[in-house]
């Protein structure tokens, strides 16, 4: 196999290997796997089901530096049944964790709002843990035009 096409293939493969290695040494970035690990650390071994929690993020964001986010959970918020924690995670920010809220029965209404940074077009996940230990999640795919500043300022 010494025809030019196969030689080209080899060089292309070599090029791809080098390019792949270059990608690996880029600055730390969260991945779906590291997000899953962060979620495990936050909620333990509990089974996370979709539902009961609603994550509100605009689906198209112009400026990743300031993204208004609100999370609300369906809960009666009584002494026996309330939302213990609400976490927000991202897939492709440098770190998967964004914020963790700790609530108690005195909150009256399980809703929080804040402003977050997004580094890339990605999935944002919200997870809540109830007082009975059950965990619920919601996710939103966000398309981003301008990323939050992670690169060198000019």
């Amino acid at each position, binding site marked *: 196999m010494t025809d030019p096409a196969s030689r080209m293939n080899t060089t292309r493969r070599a090029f791809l290997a080098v390019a792949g290695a270059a990608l690996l040494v880029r600055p730390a970035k969260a991945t779906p796997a590291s997000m899953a690990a962060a979620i495990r650390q936050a909620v333990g071994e509990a089974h996370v089901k979709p539902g009961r929690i609603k994550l509100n993020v605009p689906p198209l964001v112009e400026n990743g530096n300031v993204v208004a986010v609100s999370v609300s959970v369906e809960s009666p918020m009584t002494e026996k049944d309330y939302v213990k924690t609400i976490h927000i995670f991202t897939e492709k920010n440098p770190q998967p964790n964004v914020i963790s*809220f700790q609530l108690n029965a005195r909150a009256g209404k399980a809703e929080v709002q804040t402003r977050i940074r997004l580094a890339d077009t990605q999935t944002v996940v919200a997870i809540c843990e109830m007082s009975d230990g059950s965990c619920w999640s919601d996710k939103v795919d966000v398309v981003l035009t301008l990323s939050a500043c992670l690169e060198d300022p000019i």
Partner: protein
Amino acid sequence: MAARTLINVPPKAKRGEVIQIKTLISHVMENGFRHDNMGKPIARDIITTFTCAYNGEKIFEAALYPAISANPFITFYTVATESGTLAFQWTGDNGFSQEATAKITVE
């Protein structure tokens, strides 16, 4: 360095009413992933925790990470139980600590 804070709590509420609390604090929230124009990494400088206490009892807490925007804005809810003070505290990197209070009258 004192940071400016802005707290929005209704001054009066009925007993048992769910009230909205909005908080804002001026802070750069330097995420620690950026470099200056000499290529040196800029050290992380963020607020890491925020707590709110209603008459001394903790009602809300948040752990903040670098992915929170500059000038962190947090809104949450609580039940107005009795007249008194809501005390807010932000703590962060480099010994950052800032407190603020708001009064509420419950009828």
